[in-house]
């Protein structure tokens, strides 16, 4: 199906060659603007019609010392003429702005891959910072790659020599020289980026002009110098009809919450404390005040969730967002939300490791924390988003469950999808779920813990409603009245009711969708969260070869879909890749007594398709 770049022989003369997909990685120093360069290439490619997927990889340090390995920032984008699910395993093209970027990223570059380096940065001082003993451009270590040596800094300065800008400002434009060259290589139009530069630097026309000139100079340099022998073409993907945009995971979450607010008629309240990689959700929602959104940057994680609980008591659609360390701090308050049975959505954008861990890297290791990391029996629903665009739908679903069942809901995302992008076919507003829900107003016969017969939800009785004065709190509640109760039988009953309420959500979620052979077979790959892309790519590739493998992907992690146990039982073996040490595998084994083969990985980075593909083959042939 796909033709990898390395399969092609470079031609002598400039030729146009068509590829089904290409993976490109821009790597440089934190200050080199690699995220921006990659984003521009992505946006332009989206408008060309390619399917695409991106993976930013940046250090936790804002500005690590220039030229060091710690300061390397990279952005990978995969463009394709067909439906793709991941940003790709290994790049076909690597742009390395300095020796450290080369050293860190070269191990991933495919054999015979295209390598563009900025020779101006290849000097003794930078070799030392990157830990090179010798000039890698000279020592033969780059044989086996198609190396293009370009003096990017010199060429940029020369382009701008008649401007008033100082050298530092000129050098900041050099990423656009590289981008211009890559645009030429992939036959991309420049107008999207030039328009963006003019918007971005509307108040500094001199900078807009400089960057545009450098972009064009890079493009023209590639065109006239015949440095490249081939231009690569990736045709538009065939996608379903509709309007599309590119969306980041955290942006899709923000939009999903605004949509839920509009569809429920409830004002949105976000309580948050800055933390990587969740902060951009706070930033984005802070910009939506015209939608009646209140964002509250609290003094700490605990205050953030508590303020959201207070807002929920008042009748707002309340959300708190954090990452693993913040969720740990919020645990007691989440327990309070379980006890008082008010709607609340808790977003956990997971990152790597215990404690501070790997703040900018991705992992799925908070599953057990959000399920069990509280005192007492305190069950709550847990959902997981599987891709950047899926964040939108999951945000709506989390709000639906929270308000319908009067329960705090955890929404799991992770650093990979929070910062990743993919094209998103925009939904029609009128097709979004109707989340309207009435507050309780009837004073006659009101009891704060009188439950709905179907959902077991208690009434949402907001302050300000005459005749509904009542007290809630963290002490155990007497059934129906909500009065404080230490009665042993009542505590058992209330514990059971809180659990049953969550369990009943299983009646209200779709059955498990089996991709492959619904009737069962030799192997089922089970996934959740952001592994969906890699699993889908791997399973599809294996099925094309006729291997008897199917997959399911879980959005609802508590409760599980009602048919899950029965679906698992239809398959001889179950493989479960996850970016933790086997947390969902533990749950499935415990719940369904299924001998799940756990494929656990905690390297702070997503699975490669090939890793899962290899494991599938191993299980079926091994």
């Amino acid at each position, binding site marked *: 199906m796909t033709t990898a770049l390395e399969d092609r022989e470079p031609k002598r003369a400039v030729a146009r060659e068509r590829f089904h997909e290409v993976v490109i990685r821009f790597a440089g120093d934190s200050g080199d603007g690699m995220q921006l360069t990659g984003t521009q290439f992505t946006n332009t490619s989206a408008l060309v*019609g390619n399917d695409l997927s991106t993976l930013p990889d940046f250090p936790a340090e804002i500005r690590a010392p220039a030229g060091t390995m710690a300061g390397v920032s990279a952005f990978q984008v995969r463009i394709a003429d067909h439906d793709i699910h991941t940003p790709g395993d290994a790049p076909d093209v690597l742009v390395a702005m300095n020796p450290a970027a080369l050293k860190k990223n070269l191990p991933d570059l495919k054999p015979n891959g295209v390598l563009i380096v900025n020779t101006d940065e290849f000097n003794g001082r930078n070799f030392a910072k990157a830990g090179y003993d010798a000039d890698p451009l000279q020592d033969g270590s780059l044989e086996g790659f198609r190396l293009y040596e370009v003096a990017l800094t010199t060429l940029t300065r020369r382009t701008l020599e008649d401007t008033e800008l100082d050298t530092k400002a000129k050098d900041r434009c050099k990423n656009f020289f590289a981008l211009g060259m890559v645009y030429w290589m992939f036959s991309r139009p420049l107008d999207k980026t030039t328009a963006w530069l003019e918007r971005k630097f509307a108040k500094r026309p001199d900078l807009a002009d400089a960057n545009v000139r450098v972009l064009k100079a890079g493009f023209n340099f590639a065109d006239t110098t015949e440095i490249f022998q081939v231009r690569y073409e990736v045709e538009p993907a065939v996608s379903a009809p509709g309007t599309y945009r*590119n969306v980041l995971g955290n942006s899709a979450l923000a939009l999903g919450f605004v949509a839920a607010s509009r569809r429920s008629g409830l004002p949105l309240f976000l309580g948050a404390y800055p933390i990587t990689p969740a902060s951009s959700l706070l930033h984005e929602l802070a910009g939506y005040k015209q939608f009646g959104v209140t964002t509250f940057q609290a003094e700490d994680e*605990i205050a953030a969730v508590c303020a959201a609980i*207070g807002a929920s008591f008042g009748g707002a659609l309340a959300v708190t967002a954090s990452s693993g360390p913040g969720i740990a701090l919020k645990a007691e308050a989440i327990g309070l939300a379980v006890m008082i049975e008010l709607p609340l959505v808790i977003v956990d954008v997971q990152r790597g490791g215990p404690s501070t861990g790997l703040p900018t890297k991705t992992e799925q290791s908070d599953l057990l924390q959000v399920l069990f990391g509280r005192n007492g029996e305190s069950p709550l629903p847990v959902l997981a988003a599987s891709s950047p665009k899926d964040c939108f739908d999951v945000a709506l679903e989390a709000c639906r469950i929270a308000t319908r069942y009067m329960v705090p809901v955890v929404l799991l995302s992770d650093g990979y999808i929070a910062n990743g992008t993919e094209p998103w076919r925009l939904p029609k507003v009128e097709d979004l779920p109707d989340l309207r829900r009435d507050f309780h107003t009837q004073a006659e016969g009101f009891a704060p813990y009188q439950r709905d017969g179907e959902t077991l939800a208690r009434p949402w009785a907001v302050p300000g409603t005459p005749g509904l004065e009542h007290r809630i709190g963290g002490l155990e509640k007497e059934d129906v009245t909500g009065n404080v109760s230490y009665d042993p039988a009542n505590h058992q009953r209330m514990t059971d009711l809180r659990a049953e309420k969550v369990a009943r959500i299983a009646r209200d979620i779709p059955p498990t969708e089996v991709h492959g052979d619904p009737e069962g077979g030799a192997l089922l790959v089970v996934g959740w969260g952001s592994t969906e892309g890699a699993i889908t790519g791997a399973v599809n590739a294996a099925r094309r070869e006729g291997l008897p493998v199917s997959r399911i992907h879980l959005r609802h992690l508590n409760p599980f879909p009602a048919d899950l146990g029965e679906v698992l039982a239809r398959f001889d073996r179950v493989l479960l890749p996850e970016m933790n040490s086997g947390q969902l595998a533990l749950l499935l084994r415990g719940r369904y007594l299924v001998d799940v083969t756990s494929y656990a990985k905690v390297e702070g980075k997503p699975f490669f398709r090939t890793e899962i593909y290899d494991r599938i083959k191993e299980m079926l042939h091994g």
Partner: protein
Amino acid sequence: MADAATAELTLKDFASDQEVRWCPGCGDYAILKAVQGVFPGLGIPKERFVVVSGIGCSSRFPYYMNTFGFHTIHGRAPAIASGLKLSRPELEVWVATGDGDAMSIGGNHLIHCLRRNVGVKIMMFNNRIYGLTKGQYSPTSERGKRTASTPVGSLDNPFNPLSLVLGAGATFVARAVDIFVPHLKQVLQRAAAHPGTAYVEIYQNCNIFNDGAFTQVTDKENRTSQVLYLEHGEPMLFAEGRRGIALDGLRPKVVDLEAGEATVDDVLVWDETDRTLAWLAANLLPPEFPTPIGVVRAVEEPAYEQEVVAQIERERQRLGDGSLDDLLHRGDLWTVGADGQVREGATPDQP
């Protein structure tokens, strides 16, 4: 502002059906009665009151008030109250807290609530001890306190609560005493009328674990001689006008008017809007000085929730009431037609 719905409210309307379970003789009873006595006279419908608390003896308060109430978790009442007030600015949100709840486990929330000036009223019941956990020393206990957790005396210095909250930028600060009920009610009425955060420290006797903590103020012989009632615009006199506070350079001193040490013109005139005087009052400590009670600071600054609402309103006026469809269609769009052709922009039926 009283209307038909509120005019007939009485103390009884604010008493819940729950049996009050504080220890007999606890100062909390007097505070409860004072609050139940003040609320009916504020001209506010009962359903608009919400009492929020943390954990501790004082935090049982909401159960005994027939209003909306929320008994939350240890130290977090100001944070929960802030979220509630932000989402519903028209509600009257009162916080009942204690010295352990507000100054120790919840210290961060207290100072940030004050810094923001969220329009909630915070009643801090200071009994200088942990009561509900059975008598450990608290962050307001005096140094050397022998308690269950400090059998040979505590080693840490106490907070001066007034200095702490003034340092946090509180716009309304007051001190009252549980058994001085008419004065306590006056202070609570002032707090109720304050638009931003109103902080009221209430000396509250725990007769079980820290009995007599405030005898310096409450003993019959001390009530006039050792207590200075702060009154805006009036000289800082006490002991029935026989003594007063004057300045010696930059230091306060007690002057005896009866002995002719000074005249009333030498006595400082209390100004509740003056920051320097607030610091001075906060640091008048017994036994050298009388204990000031009353309003220590009252300045009007915009309440946080009103600013939040105004900012949302300004953005709505500037950008129009947000359209979800427009929001989804932001950024670079492209359209895939039924024929599979890709072109820039939205589909024609979309904005």
